[in-house]
């Protein structure tokens, strides 16, 4: 127990104590503490176990760059950074990757076998006899935190779309200055910072700006910004820059909800994202007690915690001195080990110059340090400062390129990117005077202290993925020398911290090993998100039933009242059948009843796309495979719409209302596709002032009356139009009034029986449906669901595009050859029908299949097979298969090679291991003459 509390700490409220548990042990803290600061103050050194070797690990940093202190919070997010999570009373916190606790982990023995599990061991070991024998166990041991599957999960995340003139990322001194300048110039400003308060480094470094103490100045600037109408977002991380200056922000919200997502479209962006301190390489530099120097200053000034009593501050640069002096003033015994021979000698501070730390000493915790000159010092904490790496991620995501600066040993933004400016430490200006004076000369003074090859002890490069200097050397020996290969081969930089504290050390070592300069090795590609963003934040409200919202019928309530069981069909929620009862029995009963009396069916999703104008007929002749301009007003014609490749895209009935008005009645699942197709050709090939398209599908409900007694039912309705077969023959349409409501009645059939499709405005649907139900009572009318309808149409051999057709089906495969031979005008796909492929005699053709083995309905998708010389070949497959109540036997439809020429042949069908036998028959199995349409 070496860390201890002082009186200070600007973030902490000592009047409000709290306590939580960590691995079952009680830890005390105060309101304002993070889990990390409370654990540190409470003397809990070991916070977790490392990824591969299960070595004890402690706190390194104080912010997003934290590689070690990941914890699982019960009922909360797994893999939470303890440095960012606020401590709350009663929290139950667990370490990750450790069982039963971080302190005593049963897998700690793995470290003894580390030489067998270096980087990329899985390409060489655990391969024989079969990698898959070892994979489950290794996968189980990989990973860090655990998802709490018993938890409900976060509530919906809010998502906000926002526009502004200037987005400033980072509310440290340079960000605040930039935001204030922009706001004073009248721009609409958004300023965001991932900390809970604005100020950045001003919250823990001494500074005087415009005569005010830094933190106070920061608060005043933020207040001024808000007064001018700028948006100041704290607890908000800008995680990615996307095309055209769209920036993604993730904002912490109170309570259970996942982070709020902001999509900000900014005219210009200022990146004031700061810089992250680098570790120093030395032996056992992963020991608990080795920490970032700047982090120690944060814990002292923000949380009132001193990291140790005898502290070694190892540094290769001048920025560590503020920390050393502050810790000494707080009462710790501090020795600075300055790698620079010309280091300063501030009063009251012991400084060893021109020496380096060779290794940290101790078992499970730091107890000392061995220096390069052989000296051994006692210490309970080693603070390391190996330089600073500007946080350039967003700049690089915006395609910015980096330059290497030898004077500050850092990658800084190079040539500017349009509309993106980088300021402050992110641009390599690490000291505050340089920021305020916008001046590149500074008191930074750094010497190189990169990892060296051939170190005797293990030197850590990437703490989170357990990658050592030896692993980098291994990668070079195996010729993985490009920086992208180094990353994937060793996994350096691939953990949840994405190499924030490891990338530069790793590529510097690679540079030395391969005789290149650091900029020649370069950096890996920067990709969003900068820090992990929960999926729930990206999903927003689009989860559950809102993930892929189904379209709802105008009469859904009425169907539910009748006991309908709903399923999704082509993006709509529709009645599959009407219960209660065993589904198959209900469906068969509905189909049987529909053929005996009369049935009512809701066909509202049926496409109703109006094509209007003087050129409408000519337009439709181009769209359809069939000739449509010869269709008389008041009549309907069935046709195909092809793709330009000649493949059947949709089928349906075209209704001609008058000379210049048609309704394209396309499949319910293809409506938007057909609408898009019509618009594209209308605008690209025709005169858009003479053809107009209007998609009326959702505006109208379509209710169908079908069956041998359909005419009788219709006769009882109060219609102001004649319904005799002269006025309204099959495939004709009339318009009129039903109970005063405008209706359009078409005699079109999908069941094979006489049918009337009644289209009404959707808000009148309920009244019309009620009328039909009432009229139907006298006839014992049945309600028909989709499943029964599918059986009825299959009995007639009516196709469903996408089920009985596939991506190669052409109109001749369905026996429709007349338009190709006789139609004189151009239409979509015409030239494709005159190709060799379209003329092949062995094309798969649409036929009926009758099972002859008495084993029930054929399996859908079963393939016709031909066996020759030991090889099995598919000759097509079953596309639809049902038990037919009308015929009291199984029926099926399929696409079979040369089917139309092989009527009567017996074919063998295979489905998984099942072999079936069926006869090829005409696709229409019931009422071949079609007389029932006119009954």
């Amino acid at each position, binding site marked *: 127990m070496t860390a201890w509390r002082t009186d200070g700490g600007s973030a902490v409220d000592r009047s409000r104590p709290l306590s939580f548990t960590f691995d079952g042990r009680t830890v005390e803290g105060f309101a304002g503490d993070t889990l990390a600061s409370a654990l540190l103050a409470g003397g809990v050194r070991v916070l977790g176990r490392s990824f591969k070797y299960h070595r004890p690990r402690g706190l390194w940093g104080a912010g997003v760059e934290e590689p070690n202190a990941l914890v699982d919070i019960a009922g909360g997010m797994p893999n939470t950074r303890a440095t960012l999570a606020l401590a709350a009373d009663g929290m139950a916190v667990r370490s990750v990757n450790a069982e039963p606790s971080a302190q005593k982990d049963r897998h700690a023995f793995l470290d003894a076998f580390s030489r067998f599990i270096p980087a990329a061991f899985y390409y060489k070991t655990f391969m024989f006899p079969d990698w898959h024998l070892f994979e489950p166990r290794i996968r189980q041991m990989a990973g860090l935190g655990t998802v709490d599957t018993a938890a409900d999960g976060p509530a919906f995340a809010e998502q906000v779309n926002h526009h502004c003139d200037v987005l400033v990322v980072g509310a440290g001194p340079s960000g605040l200055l930039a935001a204030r300048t922009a706001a004073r110039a009248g721009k609409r400003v958004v300023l965001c910072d991932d900390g809970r308060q604005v100020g950045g480094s001003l919250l823990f470094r001494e500074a005087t700006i415009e005569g005010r103490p830094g933190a106070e100045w920061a608060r005043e600037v933020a207040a001024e910004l808000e007064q001018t109408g700028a948006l100041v977002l704290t607890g908000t991380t800008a995680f990615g820059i996307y095309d*055209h200056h*769209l920036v993604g922000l993730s904002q912490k919200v109170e309570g259970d909800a996942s982070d709020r997502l902001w999509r900000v479209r900014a005219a210009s962006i200022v990146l004031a994202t700061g810089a992250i301190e680098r570790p120093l390489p030395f032996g056992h530099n992963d020991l608990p007690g080795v920490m970032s120097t700047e982090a120690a200053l944060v814990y002292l000034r923000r949380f009132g915690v001193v990291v140790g009593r005898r502290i070694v501050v190892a540094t290769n640069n001048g920025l560590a001195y503020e920390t050393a002096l502050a810790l000494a003033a707080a009462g710790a015994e501090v020795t600075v080990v300055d790698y620079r021979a010309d280091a300063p000698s501030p009063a009251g501070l012991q400084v060893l110059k021109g020496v380096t730390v060779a290794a940290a000493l101790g078992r499970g915790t730091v107890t000392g340090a061995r220096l390069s000159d052989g000296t051994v010092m006692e210490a309970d904490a080693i603070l390391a400062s190996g330089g600073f790496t500007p946080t350039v991620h967003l700049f690089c995501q915006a*395609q910015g390129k980096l330059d290497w600066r030898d004077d500050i040993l850092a990658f800084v933004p190079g040539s500017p990117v349009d509309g993106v400016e980088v300021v402050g430490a992110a641009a390599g200006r690490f000291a505050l005077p340089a920021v305020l004076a916008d001046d590149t000369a500074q008191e930074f003074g750094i010497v190189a202290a990169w990892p060296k090859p051939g170190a005797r002890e293990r030197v850590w490069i990437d703490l989170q993925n357990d990658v050592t200097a030896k692993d980098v050397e291994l990668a070079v020996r195996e010729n993985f020398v490009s920086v992208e290969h180094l990353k994937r081969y060793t996994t350096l930089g691939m953990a949840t911290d994405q190499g924030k504290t490891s990338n530069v050390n790793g590529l510097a070592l690679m540079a030395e090993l391969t005789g290149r300069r650091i900029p020649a090795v370069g950096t890996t590609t920067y990709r969003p998100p900068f820090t992990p963003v929960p999926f729930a934040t990206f999903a927003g409200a689009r989860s559950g039933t809102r993930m892929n919202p189904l379209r709802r019928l105008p009469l859904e309530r009425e169907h539910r009242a009748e006991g309908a069981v709903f399923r999704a069909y082509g993006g709509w929620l529709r009645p599959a059948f009407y219960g209660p009862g065993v589904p198959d029995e209900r469906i068969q009963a509905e189909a049987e009843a529909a053929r005996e009396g009369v049935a009512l069916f809701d066909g509202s999703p049926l496409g109703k796309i109006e094509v209007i104008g003087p050129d409408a007929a000519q337009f439709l002749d181009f769209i359809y495979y069939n000739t449509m301009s010869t269709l008389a007003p008041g009549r309907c014609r069935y046709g195909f719409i092809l793709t330009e490749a000649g493949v059947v895209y949709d089928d349906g009935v075209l209704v001609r209302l008058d000379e210049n008005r048609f309704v394209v009645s396309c499949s319910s699942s293809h409506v938007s596709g057909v609408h898009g197709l019509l618009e594209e050709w209308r605008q690209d*090939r025709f005169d858009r002032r003479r053809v107009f398209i209007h998609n009326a599908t959702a505006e109208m409900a379509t209710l169908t009356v079908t069956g041998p007694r359909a005419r009788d039912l219709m006769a009882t309705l109060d219609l102001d139009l004649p319904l005799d077969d002269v006025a309204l023959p099959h495939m004709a349409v009339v318009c009129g009034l039903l109970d005063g409501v405008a209706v359009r009645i078409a005699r079109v059939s999908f069941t094979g029986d006489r049918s009337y499709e009644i289209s009404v405005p959707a808000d009148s649907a309920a009244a019309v449906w009620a009328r039909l139900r009432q009229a139907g009572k006298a006839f014992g009318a049945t309600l028909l669901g989709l499943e029964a309808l599918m059986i009825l149409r299959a009995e007639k051999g009516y196709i469903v595009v996408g089920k009985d057709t596939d991506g190669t089906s052409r109109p001749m495969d369905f026996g429709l050859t007349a338009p190709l031979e006789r139609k004189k005008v151009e239409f979509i796909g015409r030239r494709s029908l*005159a190709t060799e492929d379209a003329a092949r005699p062995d094309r798969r053709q649409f036929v009926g299949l009758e099972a002859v083995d008495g084993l029930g309905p054929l399996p859908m998708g079963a393939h016709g097979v031909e066996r020759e010389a030991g090889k099995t070949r598919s000759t097509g497959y079953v596309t639809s298969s049902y038990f037919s109540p009308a015929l009291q036997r199984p029926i099926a439809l399929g696409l079979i090679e040369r089917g139309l020429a092989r009527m009567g042949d017996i074919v063998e069908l295979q489905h998984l291991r099942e072999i079936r036998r069926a006869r090829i028959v005409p696709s229409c199995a019931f009422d071949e003459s079609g007389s029932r349409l006119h009954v």
Partner: protein
Amino acid sequence: MQLFPCPFCGPRSESEFHFGGDAGNHRPEGFRAVTDGAWAAYLYERNNLRGAASEIWMHMACGEVFRMERDTVNHRVAEALALGQGGGDDGMAH
């Protein structure tokens, strides 16, 4: 998420648009007079240019089909032209 300028609606998110192929991919007329090669080129060959590209897009929200000049590498949009106003080659029926 890119911003595309619909000639009718103005700048909108790319997710509202549908790609309609290369501009200038004229439909060969003449039915059987068109060779297999010419028809296949029309159906299947794409320019796939690196850099400045001329493309047909549809804004699904309003149905406007238009030509957009954009750079496939840096994603800059140069301009968007309605088919009737110089976007199509003549914009009228063939």
